[in-house]
């Protein structure tokens, strides 16, 4: 056991200390970090506060005062916060509370500073429009709002209220334009409510029906469904597992080939049994894979945290990720070690790697099908078929209608059996292959070795 630990330790250190490995591992999180951290800052910095004049021609005579009120920076900001909160709550239940003013500030940038100027009711619109054409004047003319006469009180015989027209300067940005639209909308609603002697609170409460999260009722119990952003999770978790397995598995293969081609393997075999050697290598690279995953998961959680969406992640998912990663790693790591042990140089490994890579990539190609129908017969069957089972089950667990618990346990059970079989097979091939040099074997040869050993 101590020897296995020594081998694992050497394997781990030799891999992690390699400069190429460190760079390869950190380049992804580095990009994400840049996006998460510097991104919002950069976007803020590039859009300075918009200042300017908005002219209003109010044909009703009742909207302009309201408009002045709802277009103050404080009101704009309050509205924006409310909108964001509503959007978040819909996209990702549970995350709404995590939205803080600071986060909104970071995402949306500073609110525009608008000066409202009322024009007389009878002004000529064509003339007023001139003020939008950019000139060398102290203040920019941003927009001209024309409130129609029937905007607050319906014209006789009409079921709909009238609206407004908006003329904007060519330099006006989309964000500010939508701030103006929102403002006018609210001003109109306020004016209409006042005109009809309606209480805003009452009307809003009347219109509001909150939408609960649906609950799936199964024999095993009840489960809350998840929607929205969580759809991306199966894919992300799949990638994480794939990366972890590839990093560990690939290095296992190359380091085994290196030990074999440098003949150091016979020195090692004089001190440890082939199985101890293989177990040590598997453990060492497992630690490497876990390290890579920990870095990626940690970065992922940090990004979610910085976007105030930490509430999206079910802690159980992280646990499942670790369990399924262990199983998948053992299956593929063992197979790749066996390949490494059976060939004498990297080039020979390619032909054997092909099928293994296919097995690893296939669940990926299938993942949209499984994401769309996580409880279809196909998805259920695939989640019991190694070596795809872990990927498929991971996708189903992260989907919005998770599978019943017995299926998860069955997948884990089958996965462990598959891992045992893969390690057994690899152990046999490893033992025979290590001292074989010359013509690279094919899979039939490997199976013959496994049966002979």
């Amino acid at each position, binding site marked *: 056991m101590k*020897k296995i630990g*020594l*081998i694992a330790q*050497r394997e781990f250190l*030799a891999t992690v200390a390699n400069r190429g490995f460190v760079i390869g591992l950190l380049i992804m999180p580095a990009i994400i970090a840049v996006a998460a951290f510097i991104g919002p800052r950069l976007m803020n910095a590039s859009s300075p506060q918009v200042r300017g004049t908005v002219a209003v021609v109010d044909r009703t005579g009742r909207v302009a005062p309201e408009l002045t009120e709802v277009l103050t920076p404080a009101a704009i900001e309050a509205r924006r916060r409310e909108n964001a909160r509503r959007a978040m709550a819909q996209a990702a239940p549970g995350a709404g509370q995590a939205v803080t003013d600071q986060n909104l500030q970071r995402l949306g940038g500073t609110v525009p500073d608008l000066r409202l100027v009322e024009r007389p009711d009878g002004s000529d619109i064509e003339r007023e429009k001139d003020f939008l054409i950019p000139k060398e004047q102290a203040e920019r003319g941003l927009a001209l709002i024309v409130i129609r006469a029937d905007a607050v009180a319906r014209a006789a015989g009409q079921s709909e209220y009238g609206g407004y027209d908006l003329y904007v300067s060519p330099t006006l940005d989309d964000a500010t334009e939508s701030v103006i639209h929102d403002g006018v909308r609210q001003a109109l609603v306020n004016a209409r409510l006042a005109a009809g002697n309606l209480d805003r609170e009452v009307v809003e409460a009347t219109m509001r029906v909150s939408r609960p999260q649906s609950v799936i009722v199964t024999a095993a119990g009840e489960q809350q469904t998840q929607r929205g952003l969580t759809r991306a999770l199966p894919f992300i978790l799949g990638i994480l597992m794939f990366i972890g397995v590839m990093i560990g598995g690939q290095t296992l293969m190359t380091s085994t080939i*290196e*030990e074999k081609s*440098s*003949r*150091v*393997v*016979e*020195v*090692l*075999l*004089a*001190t*440890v*049994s082939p199985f101890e050697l293989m177990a040590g290598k598997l453990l060492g690279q497992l630690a490497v894979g876990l390290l890579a995953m920990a870095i990626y998961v940690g970065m992922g959680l940090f990004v979610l945290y910085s976007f105030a969406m930490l509430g999206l992640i079910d802690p159980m998912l992280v646990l499942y990720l670790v369990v399924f990663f262990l199983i998948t790693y053992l299956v593929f790591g063992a197979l790749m070690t066996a390949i490494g042990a059976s060939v004498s140089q990297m080039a020979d490994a390619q032909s054997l790697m092909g099928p293994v890579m296919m097995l690893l990539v296939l669940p990926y190609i299938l993942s949209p099908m499984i994401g769309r129908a996580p409880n279809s017969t196909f998805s259920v069957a695939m989640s019991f078929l190694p070596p795809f089972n872990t990927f498929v089950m991971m996708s189903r667990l992260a989907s919005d209608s998770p599978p019943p618990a017995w299926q998860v346990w069955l997948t884990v059970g089958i996965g462990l059996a598959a891992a045992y079989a893969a390690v057994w097979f690899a152990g046999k091939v490893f033992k025979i292959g290590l*001292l074989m040099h010359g013509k690279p074997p094919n899979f039939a040869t490997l199976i013959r070795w496994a049966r002979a050993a």
Partner: protein
Amino acid sequence: MESALRLRGVTKTFGTTRAVDHLDLDVPRGATYGFIGPSGAGKTTCIRMIMSILFPDSGELSVLGRSSALEAKDRIGYLPEERGVYRKMRVGDFLTYIAQLKGVPEQDASARASRLLGQLALGDVLRKRCEDMSKGMLQRVQFVAAIINEPELLILDEPFSGLDPVSVRLLKQIIADEHRRGATILFSTHVMAHAEELCQHIVMIHQGRKVLDEPMAGLRRQYDTRVIRFEPLDAAASLSPLRLLPGVEAIDTTDEGCTIRLSEGRDPADAMRLIAATIAPARVELARVRLEDVFIRLVTDGGRADEAEKALRANLQGLATEGMAV
């Protein structure tokens, strides 16, 4: 006392080739055994089976009293024929790693590594990476790895192949030291001269079969060929008077002088006195038995074609695989 090594009817077949065929072997503790035979005779296969790296198809073996080397690996030192190191590792780290795998505590391991490297004239390479070392240096590093656990049984597969004469001398010294320390030593070689110099006991193997298993001393007596090597003081002197001496069967001229074969039953002491009296000698001596001759005689049974014998002889002198340098 129990044997360090015991093989009974050990057989190993690869495909259609029988690499080792019913081999019996007993190596007592503390002995130095030479395992000799031409390349391809089955020496490496046999050693790998002793090390439990390969497993025999049939037969039994015990190593240091255990039924398998797997149970005694920490007490065995092994230098494989194919040398290998981790190219990126530092020499000191590599040796410490191997030592720890053999159960040597970490602090002892590095102390032993530097002491042994010093003995092999490699005192300054601890911090060097293996890939920066010459081939000869790496061979010595490997040797250190084999003895770093102070093994009870030291198995060396072709320890001198590819080494320069200085390294060979250093290695022989350390092998002798290990023997004095009490280690049982088994080494294989196809170069008979090395075996003659180091071994107390010779096991010859040919095409997987054991053809000889004798102490070196007995071998000398048994295969005393009654040949006298003669070198005249005056290089230009005619050697023909020697043919007329009583008991002289044949004379073969060599570069320095000649070899004189005596007839059966002739007393060599008497003959040497007569020879010296006939032509003033620079050197006259009884030719010692050469393992090479013994081996050739054993495997050819006198009926083998000359060509085959020549090839075998070249191999045993280390010419076939290592060129003319040796």
